[in-house]
């Protein structure tokens, strides 16, 4: 059971390269870190039945999503020797070519961050209740499904 609300992983709109760059900068004071690894999910302009995706509108069951992200975080720290990790996911509209997911892991050594990042990203895709409405250029839509 939950004793307190976990930290929110959500940010309104796209995750900017400034935000990502600044996150890297902030870790320069943590000098026990020897390796970072970063995953950036980008909205793809998929072509479906002759129509092109221009944006994805994200919604989420926020309380459950934050709780699940917190659980993923706990198991990542249990499994891997990590110094820190951060997850950010967009809500609202993110245009094709923009970033909607930013996962950042840091450790004293490199091997750990490769494994940890894959574990975390796969868990987010499978377990975190985020929903995506793919908006086409003609403003029609369909619902995205992770495969």
């Amino acid at each position, binding site marked *: 059971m939950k004793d307190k609300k976990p930290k929110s992983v959500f940010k309104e709109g796209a995750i900017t390269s400034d935000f990502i760059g600044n996150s890297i900068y902030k870790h320069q004071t943590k000098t026990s870190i020897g390796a970072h690894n970063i995953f950036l*999910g980008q909205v793809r302009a998929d072509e479906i039945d002759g129509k092109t995706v221009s944006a*994805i509108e*994200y*919604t*989420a*069951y926020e*309380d*459950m*999503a934050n*709780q699940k992200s917190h659980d993923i975080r706990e198991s990542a720290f249990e499994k891997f020797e990590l110094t820190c990790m951060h997850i950010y*996911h967009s809500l609202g509209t993110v245009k094709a070519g923009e970033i*909607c*997911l930013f996962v950042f892991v840091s450790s004293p050594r490199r091997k750990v961050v490769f494994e940890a990042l894959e574990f975390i*990203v796969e868990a*987010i*895709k*499978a*377990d*975190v*209740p*985020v*929903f*995506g*409405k793919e908006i086409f250029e003609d403003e029609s839509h369909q*619902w*995205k*499904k*992770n495969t």
Partner: protein
Amino acid sequence: MQITIKYFGQIAEVTKLEEESLEFSGSLVSDLIEVLNKKYSKLINKDFQIAQNQELVSNETEITGQEIALLPPFAGG
């Protein structure tokens, strides 16, 4: 008992609601699905999972009256 149900994504498109309270007299998740399928006939063709108190549950799980949510396929990332 009175239960609160949250709807998301394409499920909310079908119900035209994000949340509602209803009086539920069954006991299992499968009973609730039956009630909702009757209320929203288009739900029958939709793919969704049920969460109770923010954990995914199966059709055989007992409804305990906490927060229920209908979750369409996840699309995070």
